[in-house]
């Protein structure tokens, strides 16, 4: 890491980092190994309460909840990361071009983002899904579309702020090329702001993916995702409360960990 980037550790950063690291470890572990198969049903073990064999109990088909949460964390983190990666990448490109050059391109892209912002995000994702059909890939595409405008706006405003900075005027005077000014001279300066918005975007993506799966328009069964598990558990909240507990806790854990991490990073830069 660059020297100016890490000023001093703080509690937010340490706790957030540990929580996030644990979540990612679980997700990676879940790819290779889970205590039970995530799809193996067992009628005899339906709604088994937490025990040594099943630490978080079993669900309505007798599947091990711990195994499904491990897989679900992986799916959720993977989808959210890809959403942030795609929308963040588009955001940097579009934001840099519109912010630095302005003009007609700026107006067109800004009106487009206004239009996207005009819809409630879940509703818009729903529309995209209904056109593309359900499935993991389409969830990523639809969420990426919903998330692009906020990134474009953040990057654009930073580029507008910096395009008239003395050191950028000076780079132009030296004859530095446009592409180099955009991505070598300006981009590193907005990285800190951008990084925090990536963190917030990641959290929102987790919640949005969970929400979509909860509504049944996200990842389809039998794949495990946290949101879908929560939605299934809802019907059994009275008879098998542990069913909702594990996926719910997992969402809280990831979102809280990431929030603390981004707050920690923000404070380190301040």
């Amino acid at each position, binding site marked *: 890491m*660059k020297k*100016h980037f890490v000023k001093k550790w703080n509690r937010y950063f340490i706790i957030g980092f540990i929580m996030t690291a644990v979540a990612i470890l679980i997700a990676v572990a879940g790819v290779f190994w889970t205590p039970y198969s995530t799809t193996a049903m067992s009628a005899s073990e339906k709604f088994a309460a937490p025990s040594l064999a099943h630490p978080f109990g079993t669900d309505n088909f007798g599947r091990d909840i711990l195994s499904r949460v491990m897989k679900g964390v992986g799916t959720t983190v993977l989808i959210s990361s890809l959403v942030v990666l795609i929308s963040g990448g588009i955001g940097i490109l579009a934001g840099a071009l519109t912010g630095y050059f302005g003009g007609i391109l700026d107006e067109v892209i800004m009106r487009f983002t206004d239009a996207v912002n005009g819809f409630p995000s879940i509703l818009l994702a729903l529309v995209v899904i209904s056109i593309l059909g359900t499935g993991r890939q389409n969830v990523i595409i639809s969420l990426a579309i919903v998330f692009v405008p906020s990134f474009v706006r953040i990057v654009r405003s930073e580029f507008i702020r910096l395009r008239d900075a003395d050191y950028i005027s000076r780079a132009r005077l030296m004859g530095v090329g446009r592409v180099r000014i955009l991505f070598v001279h300006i981009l590193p300066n907005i990285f800190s702001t951008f990084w925090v918005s990536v963190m917030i975007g990641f959290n929102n993506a987790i919640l949005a993916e969970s929400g979509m799966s909860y509504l049944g328009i996200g990842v389809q069964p039998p794949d495990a995702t946290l949101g879908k598990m929560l939605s299934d558990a809802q019907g059994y909240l009275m008879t098998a409360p542990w069913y909702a507990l594990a996926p719910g806790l997992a969402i809280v854990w990831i979102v809280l960990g990431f929030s603390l991490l981004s707050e920690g990073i923000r404070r380190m830069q301040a």
Partner: protein
Amino acid sequence: MIRIEDLTVAFGETEAVKHVNLELKPGEILGVVGESGSGKSVTALTLMGLISEEARITTGRILFDDVVLAEAGRPKDKALYRKYQGDRMSMIFQEPMTSLNPTWKVGRQVEETLRLHRDLSKEERRRQVLDAFTAVGLRDVEKVYGSYPHELSGGMRQRVMIAMAVILHPGLIVADEPTTALDVTIQNQIIELLRKINSEQKNTMLFITHDLNLARRICQRIAVMKDGRVVETGPTEEIFETPREAYTRRLIQAVPSRIKKTRKTENAVSPDKADNILEVRDLNVYYREGGNSLFAGKRKHCVVENATFDIKVGEILGLVGESGCGKTSLSKAILRMNKNIQGSIVCREPYPQMIFQDPYSSLNPVKTVGWLLKEPLRALGRLDPSREMTEADMEAAAYDMLRKVGMEESYFHRRPSQLSGGQRQRISIGQALITRPRLVIADEPVSALDVTMQAQIMELMLELQEELKLSYLFISHDINVIYRMSDRIMVMQRGRIVEIGDTEGVFRNPGQEYTKLLLKES
């Protein structure tokens, strides 16, 4: 009478003010002079009870007519201060824009002071405010009364601030750099005004400034501060004629008085046209209202009118004028940063460079000094393949330039945030000169620096000019700085060049009323 006895103010572990003793006699103006960070503002804010909560008084006390206002080990007596603030002591700040509430009409803001401290009828308050406005030299006082701060000029806002500070006839007025944000001409009017108020109201004044020359013109006594300590106190003339401390002597010497620069070789300036590095003919510079947006207005606003002048090879042309007179617009047009122009600019240097005023915003904060010095060479190599350099050559050139601007090699890997203002300006100069341009435009390159730094940077610019055979267009609002640097000077007023000529000639025999005014007031 105000006495500050053995005052130490600490922020956490660091002591900003160390064992300061100051005494203000009734009716006198005491100047506190020092560079930024010398503790002069902290002393004033502590005296006023306006210092932030983190600060603690660790030793000493402050007395106001034998009443102890503040003392070490005693929590701040807020009720006591409320009684004194505004009524018996008041403060004039540096930046009148941020110390006036932008959402209140200025008349009401001044009236607020009266409302809090005096029991007067509404009409009486209004009359007193209008009287105070007249007393501080504002014209059209009824209109000013109903204006918002942004509708007034900087000088008018500072007058409003002063009216607010003096309306209750306080015994003590603390003025913290009251003229630093203003133009020279306005600066002088404000100084005159403060002196007039002092002689009429007989208030005691604490005048804080980094500018020794300014202090000389208004203060009866001067205290020089350095690193939180008062190093020397005495009557103004004594301080100037027989300074005891080396530091004071350095401050006095650093003041850009009208010392002519010493140049080893006088340029034989020939009238031959081929020797001009820059020729500007009938230049008009415009600005489009509303900036660059698609919906920006098409109306153009002319900021420079009919500029015609030359800069010869190896010459320093000084450009002087108040802020807003078009100096910066002219330089931007020459550098092709503003293309809304009419007329002709012939520049025989393909890549002229610029040195900016603010050393804090002119260096890219995420890059290292070495990277910053190499970047102009990289860019030039791409534009002009014949001047492409290897990485090793660039590295060597960057180290060479670092030495030339008087900095150690260890700074090569530092970032701008680890440098002081003066060091940043050195790097900034190095960055502008490393491609060896033959024309450099310096826009107020020393205005943001302390006096001691100013002298060093000017010396450096002259040395490099000689060594690299440069031509400068040197822009400043400070006529003394211009005198020291320039071969010829050019005076601008409201977008027009009103006078141009040999420096000595213009100074001895100014041809224009405006030039005379500028010379007289500096």
